């Protein structure tokens, strides 16, 4: 791992100036000229950004890859619910960039990317340094619409954590659950679509229920949903009825009218007609693409980033690609698996353009495993293709309600093996 950041001056002499005509004549101009490596700067070291960095770096020796992340370790959102449920340690869901730096030659910069200038093709770091790029990949994940729920601003997240970015927020929620007395009420507010990890809130409910059943059996879970239906709903509801009877009360949008406000001082969540006093409140607000995507003009009025399906290139800023939760993903859900899949298509497009590598028809896939309780896991997945219009679903599958205990246990074991594989695929 290196903390050294390259400034414009460090590598300015290596960046080739190619006229527009020359660039148009050869898509692989930097590599062909041979005087310098093409430079790819990746912002965000999660499932999308980490995978793009690794696949571009291992795909060509003619491209210098810089990966910018604001922390030296990355804690995955996927499997953070298992940490809350007591199935995983925090360390087991946290990963460093050491292998990407040591084995793949990726320049890892630990800082916040403060800005991106699409015209000048530069990324500015919070410390003031500037990095030039031939291609930038922006993978900032999600940010929150803090103006959507009255009283739930950035200051509220310490008392009423969203825990929808792993790390300090997940630790905060876990501590609150551990501190809660038996007989308390956990109130969770799943967000409206679209949001990161569609089955995530319901896996979280399952994991908290599992913890309560073991340690705080008189406690209750109230779900104030911003939606009237949710991912794998019948499978989750069947699992809740079997494993946690009478513990979970799910209240859809049509019943409550949705969360309108919170009062942090009293840990109260307010809907149209009712106030819910929480022992532990988990408010997951409406979401949008990460802040740098907003600031750099990559997001549209929806708050998310439109892309070219077959290359993940930005539709709004040239020479910028986007992957992961920040994009408008067509039929794909926002998930770590999706981000990893999109990243490989994106890496191929960049390798084709900057290093003349062969490119094939883009293919996308997602699978989401969700744990309901010990050795009872369900999954949903699909294949996708790039059409002119969007990333479109081809065919999919979902777990069945009548599956045997043995199948559910195999699915849980499969999820654990998947976690080991995808994190190796992202972080090396």
């Amino acid at each position, binding site marked *: 791992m290196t903390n050294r950041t390259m400034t414009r001056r460090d590598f300015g002499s290596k960046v080739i100036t190619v006229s527009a005509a020359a660039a148009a004549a050869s*898509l692989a101009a930097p590599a062909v000229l041979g005087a310098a490596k093409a430079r790819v700067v990746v912002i965000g070291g999660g499932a999308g950004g980490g995978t793009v960095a690794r*696949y571009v770096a*291992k795909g060509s020796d003619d491209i210098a890859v810089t990966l910018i992340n604001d922390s030296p370790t990355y804690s995955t959102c996927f499997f953070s619910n298992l940490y809350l449920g007591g199935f995983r340690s925090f360390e087991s869901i946290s990963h460093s960039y050491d292998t990407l730096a040591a*084995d*793949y030659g990726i320049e890892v910069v630990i800082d916040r990317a403060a800005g991106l200038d699409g015209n000048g093709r530069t990324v500015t770091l919070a410390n003031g340094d500037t990095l030039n790029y031939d291609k930038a990949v922006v993978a900032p994940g999600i940010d929150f619409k803090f103006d959507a729920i009255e009283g739930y601003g950035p200051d509220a997240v310490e008392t009423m954590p969203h825990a929808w970015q792993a790390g300090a927020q997940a630790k905060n929620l876990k501590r609150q659950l551990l501190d809660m007395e038996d007989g308390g009420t956990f109130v969770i507010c799943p967000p409206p679509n679209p949001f990161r990890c569609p089955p995530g809130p319901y896996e979280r409910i399952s994991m908290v229920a599992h913890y309560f059943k073991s340690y705080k059996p008189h406690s209750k879970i109230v779900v104030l949903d911003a939606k009237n239906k949710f991912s794998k709903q019948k499978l989750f509801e069947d699992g809740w009825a079997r494993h946690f009877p009478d513990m979970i009360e799910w209240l859809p949008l049509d019943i409550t009218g949705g969360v309108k406000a919170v009062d942090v001082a009293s840990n109260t969540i307010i809907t149209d007609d009712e106030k819910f006093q929480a022992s532990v409140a988990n408010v997951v607000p409406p979401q949008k693409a990460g802040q740098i995507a907003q600031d750099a003009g990559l997001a549209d009025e929806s708050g998310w980033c439109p892309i*070219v399906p*077959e*290359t993940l*290139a*930005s*539709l*709004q800023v*040239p020479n910028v690609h986007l992957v992961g939760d920040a994009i408008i993903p067509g039929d794909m859900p926002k998930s770590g*698996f999706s981000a*990893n*899949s999109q990243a*490989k298509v994106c890496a*191929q*497009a960049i390798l*084709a*353009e900057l290093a003349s590598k*062969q*490119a*094939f*028809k883009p*293919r996308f*896939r997602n*699978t989401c495993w969700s744990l309901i309780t010990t050795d009872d896991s369900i*999954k949903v*997945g*699909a*294949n996708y293709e790039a059409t002119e219009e969007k990333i479109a679903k*081809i*065919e*999919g*599958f*979902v*777990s069945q309600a009548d599956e045997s205990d043995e199948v559910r246990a*195999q699915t849980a*074991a*499969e999820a*654990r*093996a*998947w976690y*080991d*594989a*995808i994190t*190796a*695929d992202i972080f*090396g």
Partner: protein
Amino acid sequence: MAALKGSVLRPFAVLLFVCQIEAQAEDLYAYGEYLSGECLTCHRLDESAGQIPAIFGWPEDKFVEILAMYKHGARENAAMRNVAASLGDEEMAALARYFASQTPKESAQ
């Protein structure tokens, strides 16, 4: 934005067209290497296996046979059936060629 969309998309449309023709010209290994990215989200390229088996170093005919069993419903796993549904004969052959050549030693790169 419409103008920009055209300028971004068009070079790639040409590029992809050319490259698909090249793929048909038997660069099976390169095609397999590209396709392998999908497998490596779940299958590790080292000894660690667990519920999801390692798939490198297999004879090519065995690799294709097992994928075909998923495709035709002779093996159960829903995720693998879905994977196999997306693979034609050329894709299976390309993946078999690529993974047959991989060893755990090479997994670091």
